[in-house]
């Protein structure tokens, strides 16, 4: 399954769903496995031979300066972009080959992926319909992220913090085992950040796996148990947070050293 081109991938993608079901797929495979992933946009090498693997049940911070390749990596992982070479697998499969992706993976890539004129509840209902998730689950996730009172208002009236929560609610609709979040703390006020941190911890305590990209190093240090650092498209460090920050060094010290202080 190495370096499958777009055409090959698509033909598998369009195959009959039930053939792809494999009940054991989740138990053996790492939650995320990225192998020699390269993504090139014209002259720009956005991701350069990145390789890492995240076990089920881990909470991983994905760090790096702006434009380092974090978001590109996540987009390839989630099937929105095709790799130039290499591969990115979730639970042993390409994202597009998952039989019921919403029940395996929940993702938030941008904080404002909503139609401003649609209510938060209708945004979730449309996604629930597409994923064949019962509408009662919409009420559950609205309560979970604590935006129920605003659910019937148009999204354009939401604060950034409420939009972050609505995005998270969408990611949680299918009851996923893996959460992939790109800068989820952006725009959250201190109580929102606190809420997000306890939410992610609770998710991990129940056995969930989390990959979260962030610029907020102090926040990451409190939330994750391992980190990946990417700089100019290349993975420059990965490992357990407590090992990387041994001998009294802070995560910020480590990060600035690895990325040449360009953050």
């Amino acid at each position, binding site marked *: 399954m190495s370096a499958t081109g777009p055409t090959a991938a698509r033909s598998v993608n369009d195959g009959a769903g039930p053939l792809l079901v494999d009940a054991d797929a989740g138990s053996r495979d790492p939650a995320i496995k990225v192998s020699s992933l390269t993504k090139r946009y014209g002259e720009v090498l956005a991701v350069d031979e990145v390789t890492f693997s995240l076990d089920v049940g881990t909470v991983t911070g994905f760090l790096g300066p702006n434009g380092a390749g974090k978001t590109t990596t996540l987009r390839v992982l989630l099937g*929105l972009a095709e790799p130039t070479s290499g591969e990115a697998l979730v639970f042993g499969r390409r994202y597009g080959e998952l039989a019921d992706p919403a029940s395996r993976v929940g993702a938030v890539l*941008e904080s404002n992926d909503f139609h401003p004129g649609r209510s938060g509840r209708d945004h979730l209902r449309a996604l629930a319909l597409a994923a064949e998730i019962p509408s009662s689950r919409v009420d559950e996730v609205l309560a979970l992220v604590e935006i129920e009172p605003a659910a019937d208002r148009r999204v354009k009236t939401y604060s950034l913090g409420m939009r972050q929560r609505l995005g998270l609610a969408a990611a949680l609709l299918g009851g996923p085992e893996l959460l992939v979040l790109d800068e989820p703390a952006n725009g959250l006020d201190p109580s929102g950040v606190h809420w997000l941190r306890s939410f992610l911890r609770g998710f991990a305590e129940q056995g969930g796996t989390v990959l979260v990209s962030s610029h907020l190093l102090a926040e990451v240090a409190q939330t994750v148990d391992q980190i990946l650092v990417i700089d100019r498209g290349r993975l420059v460090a990965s490992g357990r947070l407590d090992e990387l920050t041994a001998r009294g060094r802070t995560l910020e010290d480590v990060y600035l050293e690895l990325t040449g202080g360009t953050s």
Partner: protein
Amino acid sequence: MRAQLRAELLKQRSTTTSVGLLAGMLGLVLFAVLLHGLGLPAENVGGSSEQLMVFGRGEFLGALFAALVGALSITSEFRHGTIRPTLLVTPRRGRVVAAKVWVSAFIGAGFGLAASALAAGVGTAALWVRGIDIQLDGGDYALLLAGGPAAAALWAAIGVGLGAVLRNQVPTLVGTCAWLLFVEGLLVGDIADVAEVGRFAPGALGEAISGQDPGTLLAPGVAAVLLALYAAAGAIAGSLAITRRDVA
């Protein structure tokens, strides 16, 4: 696929975009038909083909607004970023495009019916008020009321295809309007040799479906088949464009 159809229907119902477009379209139909029905000299609206042309404003505006419904169904997802959550829950992108085509065609048919019925009703009333004999028979009315929705449904599919290829909302909407309001008019305008080719253009086919200008345009049945081919080509092109290209 049923899941995606239901999701797309809810997306259409849960914003005011479609209702706003419907209101705008009906207002324009009223304006155009009343202006022509009441304003044109009696000798210019006495014949059946002239009367068909006045009533045909319904088909034309129905097709235009249905195309906008289709185009917006996909370009608004790119404009507002909802394409990302949409494709995360349905990574099989062909299904997303297909659902948009069917739902837009369904809503477009409603637009076409509303526009055609309003145009025929108001046009008939306007001529009757002036004491001008209606030259159209039941068959003409039936063609107006059946052809309008058919043309609009097919144009909605073309709109989805164009939106899926271009992605960017403004060029898609401007391009659709410029084509139907301006380019098509030139193609079936005063130059006979150009009209020989221009009658195969998709806007002219839409007008032909509702029985207009039989001297220049094709027969309704032939026009319907050809416009359906345009719609299918548009849907396929849109599906390929969405499936093959990355989403930023």
